[in-house]
């Protein structure tokens, strides 16, 4: 009826040695995943949008739609 003496010391150290590498690895993985699934595609989307962007054409389209207060559509 005699059990082995349980570990009395070094409990925090043991826990940290186990959990800290995992924590750092998972954090880096999360950051990398976010970078490559969100920020890089977003940067590319903006680059593609502005490659073919004609500001004057867009302005005229918006003007004709009548949303501006300083310049009205050409009909009025």
């Amino acid at each position, binding site marked *: 009826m005699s059990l082995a003496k349980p570990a009395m010391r070094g409990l925090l150290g043991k826990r940290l040695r186990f959990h800290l590498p995992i924590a750092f690895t998972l954090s880096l993985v999360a950051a990398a995943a976010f970078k490559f699934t969100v920020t890089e595609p977003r940067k590319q*989307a903006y680059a593609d*949008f502005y490659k073919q962007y004609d500001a004057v054409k867009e302005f005229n389209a918006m003007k004709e739609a009548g949303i501006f207060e300083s310049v009205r559509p050409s009909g009025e």
Partner: protein
Amino acid sequence: MLLRCLTAGRVGSLLARRATAALSTSSARMASHSHEVSESIDMSQPMYWDRLDTPLPDRPYKDVLTAADKSLKQKEKGPWTQLTKEEKIALYRLMFCQTYPEMKQPTAEWKTVMGGIFIFIGITGLVVLWQTYYVYPAHPRTFDKEWQAQQVKRMLDMRINPVEGFSAKWDYEKGQWK
């Protein structure tokens, strides 16, 4: 097997923290009632409890000992290596009612809790349903379908979020959603 060891003590242990709490003693209650419905605990005496977080109660479980128990307690004063396994267990049971594994046995309380939660959420749902018909005022005009459609058209005209968001999903050449 579930040992019921002073379940009143379980409630009483919550009050045991307030050591100076003056609760009515049984004698005062007896004066106002002709008979006692439930037994009240004398909070001025040391109490026994089975609690996971407070291991050592104020008194042993069994304080009135038979002659056999007393002789066992005498033997306990000597070297413990001379105690047999059964005697050690008997001494434990004199001091404590339940062991930790017995205390940790799962109860069916969660079913009551979940059932109560769902019942009250259901009653709340009925109350909210009644409110939508009898309490709430009419919708503002901004909730009408026509108003919402005009809103969407204005957002597209203003080119809201044209890169990745709202207007990016509208095909301006064809005049339809992509």
